[in-house]
């Protein structure tokens, strides 16, 4: 507590701010005159010193700050550099080490949101940088020290998805000694890897190396395996998730010995999903031989008894152990966990959406997944590669790459990462069994970047596999023989080809799970444009989700091969392990501040709080705040009509100060943008990372959630003569505070009405839903708004000033 | 065990209820179902102790309805079965007595008569159920009822009841008064070989030819037991010879009811037992049954001493009623005297048979048996008239 004493002693003293302007090598200095910005900073109120240096985040940079805090008795620090999303923690730590409460630190984002997006207008960029610093200083002057509250972390983990990634993550955590709930929606764990015949580049039998891990999961004392189950609800926050899991009935108890007698008598059949429909299964079945749990399951949609009444009791009679219980009901389990690992995997692309390959029409056009089952000794053809039309072993086969990857047509622009090597592996497998087989591989590029990959590629070429650059434009079938003509252009030799083969294998890509949306909503995650889950930071936090306590493993985060999935799984397990080992996390001190005097106990805040962290005490006629449950979205503060609530570190005063700073000069040219931390602000950063250029007249004020944006902020901006206001947040449903941004929408819509009633052009207030990945969407919005700004007449500015006069009163 | 315990050969001093129980066991009774009621309870108590010694079953049911039902069931399962009760319980049994008649089920019902109507005089003897034992259940039917007059007869006639019941496939009543039942007397139980017991007639044809209700010439059908593979159907409904319901066929109903009655009437000669005392030259005949016959005997002796030619006809079989004997007697006597411990029941049958011969009735109610002097008085008046 020494720091705290130290800071208390300084409370009374006048405010002493130190400003540090970072060059970030040339990243900032390249288009911003950092010295000038620093000089400008010195002129600002309360600033006792302003310095610029090459890398403020470097050790020297941090040392400098620490020393100045001591020497010059700084009690506020502002760093103008990159995005707070990147280095705020770094500098906060430095301040704390120097005995300064970390909430007395503020940052100006002059890289992602300035230098990188205004590369070619040094003057404008420098002016903007000054504004941004001015805003930061203004806010800094009003910063209050704060103590973070600690919440315990439950030492149990939830792993969603039982593919190889989920299995690995679960085993690692369980071996570390943590209780793990592994939830898998299929009847067995194993995932895609269980379907595959051999793995590249080592060519070892996939199920042979997976099965032991699967049974380890089955027997591990620390793992509670919940198959045929789905996560249906998640509440709470980092360290304290309350999860509801729907356990669908198997209709077969653990007494099942997997003897298979029931299958013999079951009268109904359907294609077996595990064999991609190449083999049949019965209504009562086990997905595959090595399934874990090994207990059978009844497919109730198929079973004759789906109508609740037993019309067929053949399996019941056949089961000696009497393990079949048709009366089983779905049960909902409630779990308390501290961390969550999302390992929901990927779907495979359905090629029937690409008419040119006639998948689903020509029997001998198969997918690479079907191939895996055909070549697999445990598969429907007992490992004999046959072609569906006549069950004969094909003499000539073709592999077609990038089906559902890297193409506009399929709507999937990304590389699926595994297909090239998988095809090479498959071609070698064929050569192994039927050496004389003629193999053509049609590709765009062969990507053999991994360890041991190139060797495999070379081996395949040595074995005589023909690699032809240029995908077939179409496939034509010979009615009689069912052989296939592949027609296309060899883009190396610049000549057309027309190749006749017995069978064509479409190397299908990986795509996000159709139901990713559900997990996304439940865990308030973000997704990248390709639809896979987005990590908190592509470099520094590659397995963390933006939401605390949640981590990614395997293809859920992007297409991966087995090795990478396992690697990421272990990483995720380690990350989760750290949290649980520590046993506690500190929650940012950005909870509401409550003013008993002003509260009228109207209960509006209680209604809007997405986390039920506010309750209305009927007797005392006042509200009560549960700090641990609060995650600091600030929606309550925005909703309170009596200014009885405001938010720590995002107080009305502080935000007003930022607005005022922006609008001090040339307000009529400026856009005041309120951006939520998770999507809009991150989106703006992303625009910077992608060097997407847009007009320099926007000034971003960061709030944790767009729900924090109170109408009075907008009024203030207009009252101060701002040309336009932008409120930007996550897409509805993607809100990181469950549904807080629904209130944003309501408020903005109300505001538009107000403007209309007062004869103001609603266009001057814009609402933008944007994801963290949509930098371009953000940039183009600003460009679009610039167009409007130019049209805003001075009179309109004046009217607005008058209409919202009242908003000027200080708070 | 079993056989050697069945007959307690020797001379005993016991009461009527106990003697009845011993008679039943000696007759081969293997199943007793009952419900406690004064003055028949001692029979149940004795059975509860004794049956187990002869591999028999004693079961105390929830009421007399159940008791009667149970012995019918037991009988079809092949056991000689019996229940014992008194007036109120006898009334409850009438329903299933009807079932026993309809299904021609051999079984014995002991009714120890007490003061009635209703709960009446539980501890006092009477003879008020005589007509109930004939007409108690609904419909036309014939049953057999024997009336013991001594503890020895409580033993002997119980055996008779079983034998007749087995012979004619009909519920048979031991109709004893509360006095005889509670009387303590000497009883001589003969050795087993001297005790005649009858077993029911069994079918001689294979199951598929067997008709459970097709009579032989004696109008009694042979009876198989459940569990012997005959797959019989037994019903309280009017049924054909196969045993299947035929409820709307007049012929079936007529023939069935007719046979149920005739099989007793036609065999009345074999069934009826009476005892005569100095009737050869009698001018006044006393007709009595049960306990009054004992007072009647000394009254008749007294009359003879005082020069009145009196005699006694004691009815052992009450039902079927010994019509012939009474009619024949009436033809040769001046008058008939009937003492009964009721307000006039069997006397109606006597009058019916006696035609013009005057019948003097001597009712006795309240639980006191007749005094010989009372009967003598009536004899004297009858002789003078």
């Amino acid at each position, binding site marked *: 507590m020494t720091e705290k004493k130290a800071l208390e002693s300084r409370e009374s003293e006048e405010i002493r701010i130190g400003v540090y302007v970072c060059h970030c090598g040339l990243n900032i200095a390249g288009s911003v005159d950092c010295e000038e910005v620093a000089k400008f900073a010195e002129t600002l109120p309360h600033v006792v010193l302003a310095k610029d240096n090459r890398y403020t985040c470097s050790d020297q940079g941090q040392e400098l700050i620490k020393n100045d805090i001591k020497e010059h008795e700084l009690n506020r620090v502002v760093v103008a550099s990159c995005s707070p999303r990147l280095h705020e923690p770094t500098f906060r730590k430095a301040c704390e080490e120097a005995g300064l409460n970390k909430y007395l630190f503020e940052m100006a984002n002059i890289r992602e949101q300035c230098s990188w997006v205004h590369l070619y207008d040094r003057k404008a960029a420098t002016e903007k940088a000054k504004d941004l610093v001015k805003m930061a200083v203004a806010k800094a002057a009003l910063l209050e020290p704060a103590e973070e509250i600690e919440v315990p972390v439950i030492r149990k983990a939830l792993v969603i998805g039982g593919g190889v990634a989920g299995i690995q993550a679960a085993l690692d955590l369980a071996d570390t000694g943590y209780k793990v709930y592994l939830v898998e929606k*299929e009847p067995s764990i194993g995932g895609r890897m269980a379907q595959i015949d051999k793995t590249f580049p080592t060519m070892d039998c996939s199920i042979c190396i997976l099965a032991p891990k699967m049974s380890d999961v089955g027997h591990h004392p620390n793992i509670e395996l919940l198959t045929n189950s789905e996560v249906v609800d998640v509440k709470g926050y980092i360290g304290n998730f309350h999860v509801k899991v729907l356990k669908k009935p198997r209709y077969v108890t653990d007494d099942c010995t997997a003897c298979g007698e029931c299958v013999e008598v079951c009268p109904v059949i359907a294609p077996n*999903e*595990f064999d991609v*429909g*190449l083999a*049949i299964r019965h209504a009562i079945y086990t997905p595959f031989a090595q399934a874990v749990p090994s207990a059978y399951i009844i497919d109730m949609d198929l079973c004759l008894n789906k109508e609740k009444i037993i019309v*067929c009791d053949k399996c019941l009679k056949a089961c000696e152990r009497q393990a079949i219980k048709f009366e089983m009901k779905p049960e909902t389990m409630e779990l308390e966990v501290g961390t969550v690992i999302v390992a929901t995997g990927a779907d495979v692309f359905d090629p029937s959406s690409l008419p040119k390959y006639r998948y689903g029409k020509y029997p001998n056009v198969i997918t690479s997944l079907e191939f895996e089952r055909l070549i697999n000794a445990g598969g*429907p*053809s007992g490992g004999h590669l046959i072609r569906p039309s006549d069950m004969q072993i094909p003499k000539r086969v073709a592999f077609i790459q990038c089906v559902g990857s890297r193409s506009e047509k399929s709507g999937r622009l990304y590389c699926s990462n595994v297909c090239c090597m998988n095809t090479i592996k498959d071609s070698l497998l064929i050569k192994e069994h039927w050496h004389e087989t003629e193999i053509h591989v049609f590709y765009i590029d062969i990507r053999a970047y991994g360890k041991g990959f190139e060797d495999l590629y070379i081996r395949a070429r040595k074995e005589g596999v023909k690699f032809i650059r240029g995908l077939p434009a179409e496939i034509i079938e010979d009615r009689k023989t069912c052989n296939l003509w592949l027609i296309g252009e060899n883009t190396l030799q610049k000549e057309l080809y027309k190749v006749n083969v017995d069978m064509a294998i479409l190397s299908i890509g990986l795509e996000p799970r159709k139901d990713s949306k559900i997990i996304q909503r439940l865990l308030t995650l973000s997704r990248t444009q390709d639809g896979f889950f987005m990590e908190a930071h592509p470099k520094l936090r590659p397995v963390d989700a933006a939401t605390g306590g949640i981590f990614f493993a395997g293809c859920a985060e992007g297409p991966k091969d087995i090795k990478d999935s396992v690697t990421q799984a272990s990483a995720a397990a380690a990350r989760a392990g750290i949290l649980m080992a520590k046993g506690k996390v500190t929650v940012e001190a950005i909870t509401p501040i409550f003013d008993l005097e002003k509260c009228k106990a109207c209960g509006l805040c209680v209604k809007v709080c997405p986390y039920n962290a506010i309750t209305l005490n009927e007797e005392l006629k006042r509200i009560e705040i549960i700090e641990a449950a609060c995650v600091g979205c600030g929606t309550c503060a925005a909703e309170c009509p009596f200014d009885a609530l405001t938010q720590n570190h995002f107080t009305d005063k502080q935000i007003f100060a930022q607005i005022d700073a922006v609008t001090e000069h040339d307000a009529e040219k400026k856009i005041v943008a309120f951006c939520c931390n998770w999507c809009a602000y991150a989106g703006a950063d992303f625009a910077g990372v992608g060097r997407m250029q847009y007009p320099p007249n926007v000034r971003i004020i960061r709030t944790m959630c767009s729900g924090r944006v109170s109408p009075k902020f907008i009024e203030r901006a207009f009252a101060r003569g701002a040309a336009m206001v932008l409120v930007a947040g996550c897409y509805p449903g993607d809100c990181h505070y469950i549904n807080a941004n629904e209130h944003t929408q309501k408020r903005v819509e109300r505001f538009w009405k107000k403007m209309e009633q007062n004869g103001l052009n609603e266009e001057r207030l814009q609402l933008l839903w944007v994801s963290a990945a949509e930098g371009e969407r953000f940039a183009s919005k600003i460009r679009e708004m610039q167009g409007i700004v130019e049209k805003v007449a001075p009179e309109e500015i004046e009217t607005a000033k008058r209409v919202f006069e009242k908003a000027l009163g200080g708070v | 065990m079993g056989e050697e315990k069945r007959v307690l050969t020797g001379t005993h001093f016991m009461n009527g209820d106990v003697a009845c129980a011993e008679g039943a066991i000696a007759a081969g009774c293997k199943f007793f179902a009952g419900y406690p009621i004064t003055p028949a309870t001692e029979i149940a108590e004795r059975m509860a102790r004794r049956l187990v010694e002869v591999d028999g079953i004693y079961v105390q049911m929830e009421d007399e309805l159940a008791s009667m039902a149970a012995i019918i069931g037991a009988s079809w399962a092949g056991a000689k079965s019996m229940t014992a009760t008194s007036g109120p319980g006898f009334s409850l049994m009438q329903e299933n007595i009807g079932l026993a008649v309809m299904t021609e089920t051999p079984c014995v019902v002991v009714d120890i008569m007490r003061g009635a109507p209703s709960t009446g005089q539980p501890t006092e003897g009477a003879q008020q159920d005589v007509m109930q034992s004939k007409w108690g259940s609904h419909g036309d039917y014939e049953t057999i009822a024997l009336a013991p007059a001594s503890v020895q007869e409580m033993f002997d006639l119980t055996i008779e009841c079983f034998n007749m019941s087995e012979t004619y496939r009909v519920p048979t009543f031991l109709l004893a008064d509360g006095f005889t039942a509670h009387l303590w007397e000497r009883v001589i139980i003969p050795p087993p070989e001297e005790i005649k017991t009858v077993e029911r007639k069994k079918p001689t044809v294979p199951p598929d030819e067997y008709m459970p209700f097709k009579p032989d010439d004696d109008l009694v059908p042979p009876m198989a037991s459940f569990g012997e593979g005959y797959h019989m159907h037994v019903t309280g409904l009017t049924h054909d010879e196969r045993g299947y319901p035929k409820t709307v066929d007049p012929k079936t109903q007529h023939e069935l009811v007719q046979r149920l009655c005739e099989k007793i009437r036609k065999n009345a000669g074999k069934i009826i037992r009476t005892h005569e005392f100095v009737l050869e030259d009698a001018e006044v005949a006393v007709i009595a049954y049960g306990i009054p016959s004992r007072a009647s005997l000394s009254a008749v002796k007294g009359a003879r001493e005082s020069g009145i030619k009196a005699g006694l006809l004691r009815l052992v079989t009450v039902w079927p009623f010994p019509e012939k004997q009474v009619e024949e007697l009436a033809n040769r006597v001046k008058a008939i005297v009937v003492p009964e411990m009721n307000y006039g029941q069997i006397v109606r049958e006597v009058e019916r048979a006696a035609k013009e011969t005057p019948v003097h009735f001597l009712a006795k109610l309240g639980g006191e048996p007749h005094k010989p002097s009372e009967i003598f008085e009536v004899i004297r008046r009858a002789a003078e008239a």
Partner: protein
Amino acid sequence: MPVRIWRTPLDIEKVKRPKAEIHIIKNQCKGCGFCIHFCPKKVLEESEEINERGVHPPRVVDESKCVLCSFCTSVCPDFAIFVVEKQCKDGC
């Protein structure tokens, strides 16, 4: 595993299911319709003909769809329908 499934499974021929022989004792039927309504494979339908009891007994629509669950046999209050396994010669 949401993969589009469209092929006839390669081993479809290998699975042999017992063939059913459905017996309907028309004149014993009282026409409750239980067998028709509760057949999981919708093998039966009401016929036009009227039996001795004045009702429409069931008629077999497609015997090959029957999987011998015998629910009709058990649910018939009148023992008017029963299914037995067809004793197949090489014919079927």
